[in-house]
């Protein structure tokens, strides 16, 4: 289903790899036994990894071995020791991993979508525009992009970074990329309890690493009144040893000059108040 959706959107899916299935086709895409076979016949720059948890580490090593520098690891519930190893190897190879446990990423202008993101009706949430979107939650990547659309704007690139605490692309590094991206004028992020992702972002913004407007909503305030060490939602959403509290994140982000909204729906009004380019032009086209 995902391959079909990606092709329909216009994303060139060159080949698939499933051991023992060489010669078959999926929606017209040829299948090979190994990535080496694919790379000897095609130019590949991105890999999407969908294999079950026990095989992900090997799949990532195979991808790195074939010199592919961008991979999206969709699989959830991978043993943490495996994730640590695959991220270390990717770091050492200078490759970027999005995920694990991610819905994927999308660039509506280039019509590139990696993974299930956008579902069967991409334009419902994702229209081209100047706002970057970052979220641990795949669903909230779409919902937040829909908020951007309701504000009369569109998305430059939206990335579901994955719901675990051990991931390849935390928000700080992505903000560094958005800072350099001429198509992005502002970024909206959806934040959650646990990890130090938001604290790292606050420091990065305070140090001048990201200078465009950043709007964020911090979810899960109620978790602070629950006993520590309990997971709510994503595996990464856990307050431990007093670290990862939404209230701390909110304070640090506000102190750094980030627009932290109290109610999720306020993302719309804050975005509209930023006077970003192309608001009107896009509002007209999104009405159709």
């Amino acid at each position, binding site marked *: 289903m995902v391959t079909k959706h990606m092709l329909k959107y216009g994303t060139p899916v060159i080949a698939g790899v499933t051991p023992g299935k060489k010669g078959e086709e999926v929606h017209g895409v040829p299948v090979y036994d190994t990535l080496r076979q694919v790379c000897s016949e095609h130019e590949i720059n991105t890999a999407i990894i969908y294999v079950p948890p026990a095989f992900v580490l090997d799949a990532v090593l195979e991808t790195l071995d074939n010199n592919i520098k961008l991979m999206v690891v969709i699989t959830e519930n991978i043993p943490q020791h495996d994730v640590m190893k695959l991220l270390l190897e990717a770091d050492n190879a200078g490759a970027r991993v999005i995920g694990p446990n991610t819905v994927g990423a999308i660039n509506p202008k280039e019509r590139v979508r990696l993974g299930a993101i956008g579902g069967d009706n991409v334009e419902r949430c994702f229209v081209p525009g100047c706002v970057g979107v970052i979220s641990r*939650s795949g669903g909230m990547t779409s919902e937040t992009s829909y908020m951007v659309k309701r504000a009369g704007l569109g998305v430059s690139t939206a990335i579901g970074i994955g719901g675990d605490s*051990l991931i390849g692309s935390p928000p700080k590094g992505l903000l560094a990329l958005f800072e350099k991206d001429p198509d992005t004028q502002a970024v909206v992020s*959806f934040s*959650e309890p646990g990890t130090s992702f938001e604290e790292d972002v606050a420091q990065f913004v305070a140090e001048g690493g990201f200078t465009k407007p950043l709007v964020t909503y911090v979810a899960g305030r109620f978790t602070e*009144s629950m006993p520590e060490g309990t997971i*709510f939602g994503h595996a990464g959403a856990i307050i431990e040893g007093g670290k990862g509290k939404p209230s701390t994140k909110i304070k640090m982000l506000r102190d750094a000059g980030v627009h932290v909204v109290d*109610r999720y729906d306020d993302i719309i009004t804050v975005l509209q108040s930023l006077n970003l380019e192309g608001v009107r032009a896009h509002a007209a086209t999104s009405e159709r």
Partner: protein
Amino acid sequence: MAEHQIPVPRFFVAGNEAEAIEKAEALGCEVVLKALVPVGKRGKAGAIKFATDAKSSGEAARQLFGTVVRHYPVKQILVEEKLAIDQELYVSITLDKPARKIAILASSAGGIDVEEISAKYPDRMKILRVDPFRGLADFQAKQLWAELGLGGAVLRQATDVLIKLYKVFVKFDCTILEINPLVITKNAKVVVAASLMAVDDCAMYRHPELAAYVQLGSDRAWRPMTALEKQVVQVNEDDPYRGTARYTEMDGGDIGFMCGGGGGSLMMFDALLSYGCKPANYTEFGGNPPERKVFGLVKGILSKAGVKGLILSANISNNTQVDVVARGVVGALKDKAIDPRKFPVLVRFAGVNDTAAREIFKEAGVEYYGEEISMSMAAKKMMEKMKQTYPGSQESQAASGA
């Protein structure tokens, strides 16, 4: 530990007071009695007692068996020989996620909480980050203890123990293995006196031998799991590879809460509290679950006493088929003989196949919304619906204070 040749005190497990006396007699020395409960900082929680002989160990056992340590009633205790302590060390092995390495934290000031060590004795604490592919080399372990002031035969033993602990950490896919204290006895033996070990749920398929010792999903509760929670874990495990359904029971509450997605559920729960609603549980589901998983989940949610309404609010789905979810929800309502025209049920769920879903919900009499209202608006509407259905009810109007 003992199976992996790591030195531990001689010990027995006792299930009652008489057994504790018998085991203490068998040990024939001063003993330590420890409640077997899955919580840290047991000393502070009063879960550890000392006894000089068999008789006083009976007294100590009686005290322990009568207690509940952080929600966990004491059902078994460990009776072990009391070590003649010369020095207490601390060592823990964890995953250093940002560094993508295995971190070993060691200190020559053991026996107290690690937070206290780092506050009071930062110079007696060392961190070693280990490349998981290369593993922990003997010389690294030796160097670590030497830097903390160990020498002689004790240095060699502590090195050996640390290498073995590292192997256990890796072999069992641990997320933490903490030894506090690691004791140096008066006759210069290095012995693991207390340990805390957590195994990664995601790696349990590699460790069937541990299945009897762990409760899956226990990191999503702060107390022993309730019958309903275990029931939903079973519903989830019945279809292990298709979708996820999680259920955490909250204290009290009157609204069954169901949300799609980890992030959305955090946001929705906050939104409901902000409007004065009282959710009876925390539930998130996703990953395109089959109908029977949704059915089992909703049945569980509606089974809790005091639940007088149900809200299902989710973000616009990327791959979860909303019509499949709709059939599961409607089926569970039917199974529980609930008429959504009288019992408040509100759904906000747009996404894959939502046209069909709208029809299914409408036909069943469920108030359904797609993307025409936001998730926060759904929370507000639910609050109004509860007030309308149960006018004057205290529960639906109480402010949460959150």
